[in-house]
């Protein structure tokens, strides 16, 4: 019988799942994902988690609960650093320990450190350690799976850059094995359609989780608005922004949001900005204020949407409509030279 490895559909899932899935499946391991977020998962997470935690962490616990009886292993890596002095949010750093000592009855945890600091090859080292934990010792099989996984990882992020949603991108990878070559790096929105172009700034695990974000992304799209997320800003551009600041933030995802926001402000590439943030998110307390002040300086319309356990579809819809109406009025006024 093949081992079944569970991957919770939360937090780092949206950054890494195609890589992990490709890797594990190549090794002949069955991969099980938790169900997409629903009310039941959210409520179970809220019950299980320390009450001061933010929604994404509570949600993560919910996804673990959803998976734990269906798998032999849970893949909950300790994400430490994507390189340099940058780290992930401290809650990511302590996540495996939070889960391990949460009192839930759990299958075996695979929680190796994933740190790209220091020596190159951090991803491969992490994958190799994961394979060893699963009892797969054949170095050739490991190497094959690793190179396949890294290829998928690269491809996935190229597809995200082109504006694909995570699931779309992963299906594309599995179907064709490769994407259409090198689509232009300019976002679709920059082509210009007459409708406002809006930046949706937030972390992958809020933007792409259609339940917890009240599906802001698709709500905007269905209003005819073209949406840009931080994933659609090229790494080169983000790196460029990182060099213009006196002090960068410490956290990977926050830096991406902050740099993406700055880049769009500088290039005047959007008509408005929406910052999607989770209730009691620590890093976002900083990011939100920084973005707000910069947007104010650039006279850019800026909306902060805070989501929590009680976020209602209706409330979000109303606020989005009001914001988009305002942007349209502004565009209209500019056109008429008012």
């Amino acid at each position: 019988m093949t081992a079944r490895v569970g991957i919770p559909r939360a937090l780092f899932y949206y950054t890494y799942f195609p890589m992990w899935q490709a890797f594990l499946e190549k090794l002949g391991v069955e991969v099980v994902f938790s169900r997409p977020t629903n009310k039941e998962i959210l409520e179970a997470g809220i019950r299980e988690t320390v009450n001061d935690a933010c929604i994404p962490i509570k949600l993560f616990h919910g996804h673990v609960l959803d998976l734990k009886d269906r798998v032999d292993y849970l893949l909950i890596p300790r994400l430490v650093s994507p390189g340099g002095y940058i780290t992930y949010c401290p809650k990511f750093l302590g996540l495996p320990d939070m889960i391990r000592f949460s009192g839930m009855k759990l299958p075996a945890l695979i929680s190796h450190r994933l740190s790209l600091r220091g020596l190159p090859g951090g991803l491969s080292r992490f994958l190799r350690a994961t394979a060893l934990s699963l009892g797969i010792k054949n170095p050739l099989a490991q190497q094959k799976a690793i190179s396949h996984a890294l290829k998928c990882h690269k491809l996935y992020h190229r597809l995200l850059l082109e504006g694909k949603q995570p699931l779309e991108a992963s299906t594309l990878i599995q179907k064709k094995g490769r994407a259409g070559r090198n689509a232009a790096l300019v976002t679709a929105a920059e082509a210009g359609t007459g409708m406002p172009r809006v930046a949706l700034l937030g972390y992958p695990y809020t933007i792409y989780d259609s339940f917890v974000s009240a599906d802001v992304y698709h709500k905007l799209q269905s209003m005819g608005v073209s949406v840009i997320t931080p994933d659609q800003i090229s790494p080169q551009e983000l790196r460029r922004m990182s060099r213009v600041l006196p002090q960068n933030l410490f956290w990977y995802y926050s830096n991406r949001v902050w740099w993406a926001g700055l880049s769009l402000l500088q290039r005047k590439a959007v008509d408005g900005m929406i910052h999607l943030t989770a209730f009691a998110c620590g890093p976002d307390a900083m990011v939100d204020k920084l973005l707000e002040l910069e947007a104010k300086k650039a006279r850019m319309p800026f909306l902060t949407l805070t989501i929590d356990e009680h976020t209602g579809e209706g409330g979000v819809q109303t606020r989005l409509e009001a914001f988009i109406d305002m942007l349209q009025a502004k565009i209209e006024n500019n056109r008429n030279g008012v």
Partner: protein
Amino acid sequence: MKIGYGHMGTLTMVVEMILEELGHEPVVPFRPTRQTLALGAKYAPEFACIPFKIVLGTYLESLARGADCFISGGGYGPCRAGLYGELHSRILQDLGYNAELIFLFPPLKKTVDFMRKLSRLKGRHSWFSLARIISKAWAKLNALDELEMMSQRLRPLELTRGQTSKAFEKGLQYLHQAKNRGEIEEARAAALAEMKKIEIDPTAKPLKIGIIGEIYVQLEPFANFYVEEALGHLGAEVRRSIYLTSYTRHDVLSTRGDMNSRSLAQPYLAQKVGGHGQNSVGDVIRFAQMGYDGVVQLAPFSCIPEIVAKSLMPFISKKFGIPVLTLFIDEQTGPTGIQTRLEAFVDLLEQRRLASGRYDFPGNIIQ
């Protein structure tokens, strides 16, 4: 330069002395009040932690009193405190102030930057005289810590409530006025003599409670609703996990933190999570090993490292047999709520002690 800074417990008077000796004009911050907090909370991000809001409030008050420059500590994450300086200065700028913020990073991590800022602050003084000033400040820190520990030990024993706090305030006054090494030594002796005058019940065996958690809410009594005093008056001897001198040794002058606490925490929280998150886990274990009756964890609402620590607390508390009360504090927290919970916690510890039938305790060893 008229230099302002945040108020953090007894550290305030030490910073004042250093700045004065360097020939600056310090704008000594007042003890924070509800108004200070309200002022800070008004302009700070909603989910910023309470130290951020109190310090911002203090800055705004100090600006009104003529401060044109602020100094503060910085850090290298992943705790948010490392970004305070950056965001504070942007918020002040947005409000139309032109104050300069100098934030000092840990000297061993960013040596060049630190030396540059230090040499600006020292002005015309030689490095030698700076060293003399620092060593004087160190003497004062030691005296302050000693005084504080003594007050924590005596408070539960006092016969008339409030005597210790009064004597402690007097002692702080003495130390505040001491300007050189000799005077500091004299003030220290006088302060300790003041403490010795307190009438105590020498036979009492007070409960022992450890205080752990985030540094600012531990060290600034306003931020923790005077929890030390409250517990003392409820008949408990308290000991914090952080004192100024230990903080200076472990967090300012080292890149590794308090290895003792951190290695205790290692099996449960294998990763440094910023701030004092890992320390908090280790400190509970340390207090349990020292025979303490309970631990109070103090943390600002939305403090990331302490949330990670708190999520491990049920397990640690059970495993090491020590009750832990966690207090998350924000601008909505009321003093009565805190008082009630402390009373209930002390009651629980007393019941627990009675049930254990264990009356003789190790004396006041610790540290």
